[in-house]
């Protein structure tokens, strides 16, 4: 009986076997022949990271207020005739604080006509002293403790930046913060004068 070894394959048959047994190349559209989207993915990833970084780096906040009052910074709502009615006037020499009782003198200890908190020698406002003085004035009477509003007025040329600095000084507490105290904060009082109004001297 003849075995396969008895009849070797012809060259044509061997060639055909090689051709037919060769692994088929994947055509576009086959699973293995997908478009190479890795560069696209890289770009997308970079953009996502860039956008997320941009969002994370800069944080903004807003200070709420209402239309300015005319006439030397008269407070919007007088809680009562015995209220503190604090007014801060930002001038070229410093910050003058006024209350219903009158203008506060330099040093914040008594009434007087001086600049309540003069500028520092480097030209900046003495923000820590403004905070200290505002807290001192608020603590002078129990009725003042509930008072939250302050009117801020500036000289015509006062930069907006300085107005915001003074507003911050009038709002913040010992820790330089102005957010409502939580249980973990202990004795922290929160904002001094969170309600800001703008005034304009006639």
């Amino acid at each position, binding site marked *: 009986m003849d075995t396969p070894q008895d009849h070797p394959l012809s060259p044509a048959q061997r060639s055909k076997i090689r051709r037919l047994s060769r692994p088929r190349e994947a055509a576009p559209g086959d699973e293995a022949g997908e478009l190479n989207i890795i560069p696209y993915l890289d770009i997308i990833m970079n953009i996502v990271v860039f956008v997320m970084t941009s969002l994370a780096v800069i944080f903004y906040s807003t200070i709420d207020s209402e239309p300015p009052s005319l006439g030397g910074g008269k407070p919007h709502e007088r809680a009562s005739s015995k209220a503190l009615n604090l007014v801060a006037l930002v001038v070229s020499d410093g910050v003058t604080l006024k209350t219903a009782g009158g203008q506060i003198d330099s040093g914040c200890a008594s009434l007087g006509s001086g600049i309540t908190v003069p500028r520092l020698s480097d030209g900046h406002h003495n923000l820590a002293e403004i905070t200290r003085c505002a807290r001192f004035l608020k603590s002078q009477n129990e009725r003042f403790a509930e008072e939250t509003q302050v009117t801020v007025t500036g000289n015509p040329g006062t930069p907006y*930046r300085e107005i915001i600095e003074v507003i911050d000084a009038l709002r913040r507490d010992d820790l330089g913060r102005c957010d409502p105290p939580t249980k973990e904060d202990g004795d922290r009082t929160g904002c001094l004068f969170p309600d800001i109004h703008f005034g304009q001297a006639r």
Partner: protein
Amino acid sequence: MVRYKAALRLAIRKNKRETEIDFLNITALLDLMTIILVFLLQSMASSATSIAESQDLTLPRSVMSDEPAQEGVRVTISKSAILVGDGSDPVVELPSRESLMQSGLDARHKRSGQPGDLYIVPLANALQSVREFDKRLRASRNLDTSTSEAIIVADAETPYRLLIEVLYTLGQCEFGKYHLLVRKSDSG
């Protein structure tokens, strides 16, 4: 023929590669990334606090930590112009800071024609149309239509006089609440 078929089967079996995962199907990931990207870009574009700071507009820093208000018409006071909304056309072009420090905006822009007046006519004209639109929008949302809100984006060096003129004009145009946009001092 039998021998040929046997040899072919053997060769095919021999050359057949094991099915292996030589690629990752990242289509789902790509879809996700694209959706996140579109979402982020949309958020940035619609956010009232997406401010492009430049030499012409640098926001002051503040210790404030609250989230910025999103509600309101944006009024931008840069070093060179006042703009309303997202438009790039200035409502008023500003003179030098030295000039603004004395008596605010030029008298020809004021209602009474006097430099002491606080009412800026071109700004008021722009605000009135915005106010009408905002009033209709608020009515459709069942919100209080008696007043609108504004987000003030002012340069840190803006003279107080000009700031007050803008705030006063806003008040006259029934904008009863302002949100002064500042940069958190710990934001780098």
